Structures are given as structure tokens and as C-alpha cells.
């Protein structure tokens, strides 16, 4: 009884302590809320990031990869052999994006779909999971060289999951298990169906710029393949509606199938490509 009385006598003290109006409305908000701004760009470097274009917004992304810097001044550090990709991505909703692009690397057209399945939350789900699919059409294959070529050989497909976590305000990491299929591969020993695991991340160096890197581990590359796993390092710089991404990579292609399957540079002998992505939101 005495204990109960003591508790009862203590309770009113709590009631009186609400005198400060601000304290009365400033309830400790352990609200579940979505984590935003995991990455600045739609891509980390080569790999897609879990960022999507917002609803009813159109992003135009111009990407360049110069030729190998290895030949130095002779090709002006690769400027002479640059490839370009023009890419439009539209936000149907905040969670569904459709895109089309044309790359001068193998004259590839592609149609892409990117969709968020679940978003990382404060006090909630720890990851953002996004799906990415693409259909690619290689229009550089030539019937004169490949007499048996049919249209289906030009096609390639990408199926990818992007799993990211914003560890803190500065550091975000991502895993990208990837399956891709090319109906035409350069060497017979290479399976048409290929598997890869992408690792990527960004670290913010300031409010508006970050250092980014990604690496793709090809899981069933043919033993005699000349291609190598793509490693890329770069910087993001954001200025209002633009994001600039400048980077070095040992893959010159910018489509997922291209940089995973046909990266032919090599960091160890300086055979790498300078490039940038420039994105503008409309």
C-alpha cells in the first residue's frame, strides 16, 4: 500500500512538469522515416546506384569515356577515341523509372527499367533494394563479317538487384548481384549467360562532392577471355540541378553488359579510360 501511495504521489510531479509548452509538443520522435540521398547520381561510377529519378522528372545523362590514356599525347590522353552515351530517364513514379539510351560503344541502344522494391528507413528496414532491367541492341554487328547474323544475335539482357545502405551521412555502400545474357559473345568459350557481383560505395568529402568507386566481379568469365573485371574510381560534384561525375575506369563501355563483359583495360599497366557523366534534371 505504501509503495502504491508513493507511486501515486510521484505521478502528479510528472503532470506538473509539463509547464513548458515546447516540451509538451516536442515528443521524442522515433518516427520511421525514409532515408534519402544515399547517392548523388543515378550511377555510382559504372554501376547503377539505388537513386531514382523523381516522379514526372526527366533526367538527361551524357556520358563520355575517352580512349585509353596509355598512348599519352599521341591520342591526347584518349580524347581521340572517345565514346559517348546519351541517356534519358523518366520517373513514372518516385519508384519506377524508364530509360532509353544510345551509346557509340558498339552502337548499342538500350531500354531500361529501374524500380524500387523497398527503401531504407530510420528505425526501420536497413536497406534500399532496387531492381534494374535492360534490353540492349547491338547495332554494330555487321552481316558482312558475320554472314549467319540474325536480329536476335544483336540482343542482350540485364537483370540486376541493387542493394544499398547509407551507413551514415557520408558513407553509402552497395551490392549489385547481376545476371546478364548476350546472344552474341566474342569467343565461343564464354557462356552467353553470365553472372557478376558489383561492389560500390561513395564517401562524401564535402556537402556537394564525394569520392566514389565500384568494382565488378565476373563469376563465370571464360579462362581465355581477354576481358577484365571493371574497377572504377571517381568524384561526384553536385551543383543544384546538375551532377558531374568524373572518373577513371578500365572499362570503356557504359552499359552494364558492356563494362562487365567487355572491359579490356588494365589498371596495372596504365591502360585505363578517363570519363565523365553529366546529368541534368528537367
Amino acid at each position, binding site marked *: 500500500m505504501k509503495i502504491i*501511495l508513493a507511486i*501515486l*504521489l510521484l505521478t*502528479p510531479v510528472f*503532470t*506538473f512538469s509539463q509547464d*513548458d*509548452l*515546447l516540451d*509538451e*509538443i*516536442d515528443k521524442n*520522435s522515433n518516427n520511421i*522515416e525514409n532515408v*534519402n*540521398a544515399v547517392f548523388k547520381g543515378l550511377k555510382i561510377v559504372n554501376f547503377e546506384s539505388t537513386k531514382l529519378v*523523381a*516522379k514526372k*522528372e526527366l533526367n538527361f545523362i551524357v556520358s563520355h569515356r575517352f580512349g585509353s590514356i596509355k598512348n599519352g599525347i599521341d591520342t591526347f590522353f584518349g580524347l581521340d577515341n572517345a565514346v559517348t552515351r546519351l541517356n534519358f530517364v523518366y520517373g513514372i513514379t*518516385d519508384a519506377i523509372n524508364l530509360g532509353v539510351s544510345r551509346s557509340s560503344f558498339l552502337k548499342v541502344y538500350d531500354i531500361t527499367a529501374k524500380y524500387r522494391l523497398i527503401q531504407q528507413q530510420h528505425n526501420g528496414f536497413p536497406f534500399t533494394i532496387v531492381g534494374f532491367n535492360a534490353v540492349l541492341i547491338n547495332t554494330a554487328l555487321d552481316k558482312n563479317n558475320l554472314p549467319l547474323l540474325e536480329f536476335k544475335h544483336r540482343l542482350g539482357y540485364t537483370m540486376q538487384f541493387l542493394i544499398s545502405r547509407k551507413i551514415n*551521412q557520408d558513407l553509402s555502400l552497395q551490392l549489385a548481384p547481376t545476371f546478364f545474357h548476350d546472344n552474341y559473345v566474342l569467343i565461343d568459350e564464354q557462356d552467353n549467360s553470365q553472372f557478376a557481383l558489383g561492389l560500390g560505395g561513395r564517401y562524401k568529402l564535402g*556537402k*556537394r562532392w564525394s569520392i566514389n568507386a565500384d568494382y565488378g566481379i565476373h563469376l563465370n568469365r571464360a579462362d581465355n577471355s581477354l576481358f577484365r573485371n571493371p574497377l572504377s574510381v571517381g568524384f561526384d560534384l*553536385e*551543383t*543544384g*540541378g546538375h551532377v558531374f561525375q568524373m572518373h577513371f575506369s578500365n572499362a570503356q563501355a557504359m552499359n552494364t553488359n558492356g563494362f562487365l563483359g567487355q572491359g579490356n583495360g588494365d589498371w596495372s599497366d596504365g591502360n585505363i579510360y578517363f570519363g565523365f557523366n553529366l546529368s541534368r*534534371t528537367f
Partner: protein
Amino acid sequence: MKNLIIYFLLCFSCSLVSQNKYITKTGNINFEASVPAFEEVKAEHKIVTAILNSDNGEFAALALVKGFRFKNALMEEHFNENYAESDTYPKATFKGKIIDFDLSNLNLQASSFVIKGELTFHGKTIQFDNLDILISKNKDIISISGSFKTKAADFDIKIPKIVRSKIAKNIEVTFNYLLKRKLKFN
């Protein structure tokens, strides 16, 4: 048992002398920093919590900074990430007192009052000594509205050179609260 009864009596008597409070969870704050000929920079917040003690005119408001909605998602992201830093400073608060507040003088016609108090945003607090506000009352609802001009620099928010010409120096802030009588034991 007797003690319990005494306690409950105490409790009720407390509530009888307890203050009259008016509260809202859907207050509005808007700010605009647009420069003509450039992209519109303005935001609206529709879920501001505010409370008024009608016995002494004390007033407080709280807005979660992430609740400001902009014209587009990118602007909103940049506002939270680069300017307001809402992960570090999640709340904007105001705490003050309406001078010479008298509930019985309020009516449907809005009348002018002066409020003084302090506004905290982005970790910085600024003082208002005589901010004009309009107050009206319709049955159990008190409406408070007003506006003021402020600068990003007052709150230690740096605007980078590259966008400085696109964001107005003087930011116009307007607010509007419809406060309902708070029920006791609620």
C-alpha cells in the same frame, strides 16, 4: 483507500486549475526565396505542431525540417542535405509569448497582436521582439497568422556562389495555425 480518494480528488482539482490550451498538429509554414526569372525556390510545411496557453499567451511551435515540401524532389533533397542539414538539426522550433493576450477580447474579426520569442533552426536561435501577428477566434478555434523576413545567413546557412544569384537574400516566411481547444486528459 482513503488516501486513494484523496489522491483522485487532488488529481481532479489539479486539472480544474490546469491551464487552457489550444493545439494543432496541422499548422502551416511557407517560405519563399525565389528570384524573378529563376527557378521558383519555395516550400510548404503542412504538419507543424503548435500550442497556445490561452491563460497567459505563451505560444510554441515545432516543425520537423524534413516536412518542408518543394516544387521538386531534387530541390527538397538539396535543402535537407546541403542547407538545412536536417539529419543533424531535425527540428525547427519557436517559443514565445503573445503580449497582452486576452482570450475574451478575441472574435471573428482578426485583431493585431505582438509576439516575442525565439526561433531555432539549423542549430541557431534568433530573437523576435515585436513580431506582428493576427489572431481571430471562431468558437473553439483560434487562428494565428503572420509573416516575417529573414536571411539564410542569420541561421548560419551558407549559400554557395554558384547558386547565390538564384536564391533571394531576404526569405519571406509566412505561418498560419488553426488551434483547437485541447481536451483535458488528452
